[in-house]
């Protein structure tokens, strides 16, 4: 919007005076800090940046950013952000929400925002639980989850947010977690720099209602064995001495194998730019929950027409071919008669 150069800023400039009201120890704090810290290096201005959210613990996020912010209603933030993005392609728009907000009540808006590919970066804080309503199972909770609304265990098969996003034609899909600031920042930066809609699933610990849900994979001591870091152009390997790897087996699924001299050459080389989402989807199915080795990083990053830009092109084309709108001509555009 403004033409002057991006001024030098610090984390403090991006921090609003509002005191965060999350529970002490919540994973949201580390995500907030990561983002506040990275903003000065993003090459964007505070006044051109908008955080949009729905309802939930994560949805309080905009209040803590010293940017423009819109805390809306449960589930609707992808739709609201899409309208804003279409009307104002000059803005940097981030959407923040939890798994309940985005995948339950807002599931419909999420998939449609993703398929349309307007320029919004969606940060999905996945803690596999409803926090603000004090601990009910969410659409990402594991089957059998014991909560107040499921005292005998939940029956619902959870969503895999990455699989869902790939199925919804998302042009940028990534996953990270709240225990690794650098990784978060790297993935979120890529999501922002991507033209079009991006979805970043962030594993986030709710220390009150679902403490340690991701500890088996995100705890420092476990990461090497349990997180499969996807690096574009490199073989997908992980574990001590990169002794394990991923290949596509004869039935077309991704499979974790111990790397041997025989199979080493057939290991998958990660191509985040592959337009066909089949391999990205296969990777998303490697893990059925945060207790198995789980891929993190960018699953898919492809170019696709950006919605707001395409809208603007149609407007420009109409103005070129029909001339700028003239109200008098419009009102006389149907058959007229004179009395």
């Amino acid at each position, binding site marked *: 919007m403004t033409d002057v150069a991006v001024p030098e800023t610090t984390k403090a400039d991006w921090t609003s005076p509002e005191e965060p009201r999350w529970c002490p120890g919540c994973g949201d704090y580390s995500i907030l800090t990561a983002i506040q810290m990275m903003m000065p290096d993003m090459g964007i201005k*505070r*006044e051109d940046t908008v955080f949009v959210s729905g309802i939930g613990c994560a949805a309080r996020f905009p209040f803590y950013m010293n940017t*423009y912010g*819109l805390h809306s209603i449960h589930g609707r933030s992808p739709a609201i952000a899409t*309208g804003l993005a279409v009307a104002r392609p000059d803005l940097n728009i981030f959407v923040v929400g939890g798994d309940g907000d985005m995948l339950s009540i807002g599931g419909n808006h999420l998939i449609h925002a993703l398929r349309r590919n307007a320029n919004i970066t969606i940060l999905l804080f996945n803690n596999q639980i409803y926090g603000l309503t004090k601990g009910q199972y969410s659409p990402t909770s594991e089957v059998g989850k014991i909560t107040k609304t499921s005292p005998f265990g939940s029956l619902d098969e959870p969503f895999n947010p990455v699989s869902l996003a790939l199925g919804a034609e998302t042009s940028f899909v990534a996953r990270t977690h709240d225990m690794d600031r650098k990784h978060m920042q790297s993935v979120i930066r890529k999501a922002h720099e991507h033209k079009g809609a991006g979805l970043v699933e962030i594993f986030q610990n709710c220390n009150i209602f679902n403490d340690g849900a991701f500890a088996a994979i995100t705890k420092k001591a476990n990461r090497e064995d349990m997180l499969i870091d996807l690096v574009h152009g490199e073989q997908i390997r992980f574990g001590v001495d990169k002794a394990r790897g991923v290949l596509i087996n004869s039935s077309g699924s991704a499979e974790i194998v111990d790397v041997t001299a025989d199979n080493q050459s057939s290991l998958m080389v990660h191509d985040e730019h592959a337009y066909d989402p089949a391999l990205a989807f296969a990777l998303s199915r490697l893990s059925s929950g945060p207790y198995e080795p789980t891929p993190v990083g960018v699953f898919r990053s492809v170019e696709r027409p950006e919605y707001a830009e395409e809208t603007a092109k149609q407007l420009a084309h109409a103005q070129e071919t029909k*001339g700028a*709108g003239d109200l008098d001509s419009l009102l006389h555009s149907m058959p007229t008669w004179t009395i």
Partner: protein
Amino acid sequence: MTDTAAPVPEVRQLDTLVVRFAGDSGDGMQLTGDRFTSASASFGNDIATLPEYPAEIRAPQGTLGGVSAFQLQIADHSITTPGDAPNILIAMNPAALKKELNRLEPGGTIIVNEDAFDERNLKKAGYLENPLNDNSLDGYSLFAVPMTTITKEVCKDTGVKPRIAERSKNFFALGLVSWLYNRETKGTIEWIENKFKKLPEVVAANKAAFNAGHAFGETAELWDITYEVRPAKLDPGVYTSVTGNLATAWGMVAAGQLAKLPIFLGSYPITPATDILHEVAKHKNFGARTFQAEDEIAGVGAALGAAYGGSLAFTTTSGPGVALKGETIGLAMILELPLVIVDVQRGGPSTGLPTKTEQSDLMMAMYGRHGESPLPVVAAYTASQCFHAVIEASRIALKYRTPVMLLTDGYLANGSEPWLIPDTATLPDISVDFATEPNAQDSEGNPAFHSYKRDENLARPWAIPGTPGLEHRVGGLEKDVTGEISYDPQNHQDMTDVRAAKVAGIANDIPPTMVSGDIGESDVLVLGWGSTWGSIESGMKRARAEGKKVAHAHLTHINPFPSDLGAILTKAKKIIVPELNMGQLSKLVRAEYLVDAKAVGKVMGQPFTAAEIHDAINAALAGDS
């Protein structure tokens, strides 16, 4: 051929004519009615139309449920309704005759497509005997014309296959009716050529059928009188014919120009509102952004997002959509952002009568949100006036930073009337300023932006993203004047009060109640709102013609009410409130003014007839209501 020319029938003048075209959904009755309307409008008649079609795109052929009708009134003077009883019914099949006959005036004219009255169609319509032969129509002037046969015959030379040719029979009917009422034919021929220009065969068939219908009238010697309705003495100027939905769409484009803002329409297809989205989507050269959302909620959500970004934003829908949008409208209300919600009301509840008119969303527009959330409510009162109603709703939304409910309905949406095209230079400037500077100081004396600090209209600043120095957060949580979240009990009371006061204060900024007649001198006051205006005016004229003392007060603003309404109602001896619901406005004025306003409710999917209003006035005068 003999050289004896057919006798030229006498031309008799009519001051008004009500025509009803009825046929199967696939018979092209809406097109036929539309075309007859246009021919009459360009001739200079005043017109009012009432298209009525089934909810199904193609209901079972030949059945009563599949009957599609189009009624229009044309007159040599100013009229306000599509007429009560048709003078002439054109029935393309037995079902149309059966379904529509009871509307026809006693002794009225019926023209039927005789070819359609075969055993199968008669049975589908539920006729045991062919009504064309059993004398049951003796009280009417019946003309049975083999429209299909003649149409197929004349289309032989065009090379069109008989099955295709048959579809042109509506143009035969149009040609015949055009002859009977002395409508000029050139415009219709040109229209056919233009409308079907990509299908030369269809052009040929339709023209042949239209000409054949016209020629049939001339040569069949069935009529010794034809009729003419002279041009009406309307205000001089350039006219065009608009439906309410077209006028609404153009009103949005105009409002954007008058506000000097880009417009954004977020919407989801729903009958009978969809045509507005269709129309606005055409006008991208005005910078109009249209967004067909995944659902009603996303339609209003996207519009709200655009409003937050500085667009003049609209969402269009009907009752079921308003129900879904309620939570987002409530958010817009507490955010205090401009937004116009257009509700093209239809029969409810639930899916109800989706293609029929009703005014039963008034209470939902007023109160259909959780919490204390008053919103301005504006109602359009004629099809063409929808144009100005959108501009007015936009003006209020922008000036007071509030969502505004604009109520139209199926009758206004689909009905058309001639419209004296306004001089755009006379349209109001509705532009407002965005906030660009801090408006307060923080505790340390530094410049600060208080996002809920109010102006003289109690409106808060509209500071859009991209404005340096005014970065702030807004949301659905209660906040204080600074914009910070506040759970303070007194603050919530104060904010609730001020939001209500803001809306109430708009009463000083809207036109007075529309009044016709002298209220103090009248024995009964008819109070109406929105689309009933035409029916009430028409019914009242009849009562006045009988020497009855009646006045009409009409509302285009329902929240807040115009500031003179209380005095008007207090002055009235008796008040009746005809509305296409079961008494919603009457409840509102009773609650607000403690007056004995009697509801005259109707929910039959159709507007009031003038006769119904006339009867209601008489009943009130007789003390029956």
